[in-house]
C-alpha cells in the first residue's frame, strides 16, 4: 500500500493545521483547550475544542429515534371534506407518487424526508453509544464517515416548512386538523438538529482513532 503518514492529529500532536477551505498552512498554532481556531485567510473554523459533546449528542439522537416511530406511523395531517376524511403520513405522499409513476419525486421525497434522516440517526447512535461504552469495531470508522457525507441530503426542516405551506394552500378548500404525527415530527426535527449541532466531529475522530491505534497504529 502506497501510504505514508506523517502528521498525526491536526492540532494536538503535529501542530500543523491545514485549512479545509483554502489550504492555508499554519504552523505552531498554540494549543488551547477551550478555543475555537479560525482561518486567518478565509474565516473557516479550523478546530473546535468542545468536551463531552458525545454523550449529549447520544441523548438527543436516542430521543429523535424514539420520535421517529410515531412520526412515520401516525398521521401528520387529517383533511375533512364533505364528511369524508383523508389522512397523510410521512410516507403516504411517496407511496401515492410512486403509484402515479412519479418515481424521481417519490424516491427523492422518501430519501430526504425519511430514509436519510433515519439512517443518519442510526449511525450517530451507533458511533456515540460505542464511544460511550468504550467499544470499538472498525465499522465505526466508515459509519461516522457516512454520517458526515449524507449530511446535506437529510432535509427534515425543509419538509416541516413544506407542511406549513401545504396547510396554507388548503385552508380555503377544506378543514385540516393536525395529527399526532405532526407533533412527533416536530420533536424529531428539534432533537435531531440538537444531536448534530451538539456534536463536535473533532472529538469523535479523536476518540475513534485513539481506539483504532490500539490495534494498528495510524
Amino acid at each position, binding site marked *: 500500500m502506497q501510504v505514508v503518514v506523517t502528521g498525526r492529529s491536526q492540532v494536538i500532536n503535529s501542530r500543523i493545521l491545514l485549512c479545509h477551505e483554502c489550504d492555508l498552512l499554519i504552523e505552531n498554532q498554540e494549543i488551547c483547550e477551550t478555543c475555537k481556531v479560525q482561518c*486567518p485567510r478565509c474565516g473557516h473554523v479550523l478546530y473546535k475544542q468542545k468536551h463531552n459533546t458525545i454523550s449529549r449528542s447520544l441523548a438527543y439522537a436516542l430521543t429523535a429515534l424514539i420520535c421517529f416511530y410515531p412520526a412515520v406511523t401516525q398521521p401528520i395531517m387529517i383533511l375533512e371534506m364533505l364528511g369524508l376524511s383523508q389522512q397523510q403520513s410521512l410516507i403516504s405522499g411517496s407511496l*401515492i407518487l410512486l403509484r402515479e409513476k412519479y418515481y424521481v419525486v417519490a424516491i427523492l421525497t422518501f430519501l430526504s424526508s425519511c430514509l436519510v434522516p433515519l439512517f443518519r440517526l442510526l449511525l450517530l447512535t451507533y458511533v456515540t453509544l460505542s464511544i460511550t461504552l468504550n467499544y470499538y469495531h472498525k465499522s465505526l*470508522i466508515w459509519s461516522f464517515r457516512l454520517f458526515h457525507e449524507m449530511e446535506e441530503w437529510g432535509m427534515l426542516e425543509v419538509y416541516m416548512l413544506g407542511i406549513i405551506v401545504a396547510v396554507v394552500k388548503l385552508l380555503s378548500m377544506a378543514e385540516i386538523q393536525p395529527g399526532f404525527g405532526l407533533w412527533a415530527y416536530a420533536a424529531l426535527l428539534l432533537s435531531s438538529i440538537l444531536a448534530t449541532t451538539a456534536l463536535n466531529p473533532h472529538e469523535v475522530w479523536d476518540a475513534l482513532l485513539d481506539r483504532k491505534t490500539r490495534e494498528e497504529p495510524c
Partner: protein
Amino acid sequence: MVSKTITPALPDKIITGKEAGLVLCAECYKVHRYIPDAEQECRCCGAELYQRKPDSINRTWAFLIASMILYIPVNTMMIMNVAYFGTDEPSTIMGGVILLLQMGSHAVAFVVFVASVLVPLFKMIGIMLILFSLKYKVNMTDRQRIKMFRFIEFIGRWSMLDIFVVSILAALVHITGVAEITAGPAATAFGTVVVLTMLAASSFDTRLLWDYKRKNYKNIELNQEPAAD
C-alpha cells in the same frame, strides 16, 4: 460553555498545504504527506486523499449546465394539477405563487417564491459567476467569493420545498371525483434540478479560489505574495 475564538496571524509567507507537499484528509482532518502520481488512502479512516477535488471545474460546469437546461421545463410545465369537482386546474411554480397571493397569504407566497424561484436562480447564477470570475479574473475579492459560495451551499437544499409541498398535497387531497391533487412533469424536472445544483456545489473545490489568485502572481517569486486582502 463560552469558548474563545482565536484567529492566528496570517503568516508573512503564505504557503498552502499543496505547495508544502501535504494533504488534508477531508473526513478525519489528519494531515498526511502527499505522494504525487499515486492513489493515496487515509490510513486513519480509509478516505481517498486528494489535494484538490479531481476535475472539479469541469464537473461543476457539467452539473450546472445540465441543471440550467432542465430549469426551462421546470418553469414552463405544470408542477401540479388540482381537480376540484371535475374541473382541472393545472399550475406552474409561478402560478402557485400567484394563487397564494390571491388567497391573501402574502408571507407564505413570499417563502415559496424565495425557495422555488429565487434560490435555484441565485444558486445557478452564483456558481456560474464564481466559475467565470476564476476564468476571466474578474475583480472580486477572495472573501466575497467564499462568502457567496458558502451562502449558495447553505440555501440550496431549501428549494426542495415545492417538491415536498406537492407530495404532501398529493397524499392529503385524494378524494376521487371530489378533490384530487396530482403531481405534474415539472415536479420531476424540479427535483432533478435541485439534485444537480447540489452536486454542482459539492463538486466545486473552494481551495481553487485561492490557487487561481496565486497563478496570477506567477511572475512574483512564490513565497513573496502579499497577504491576501
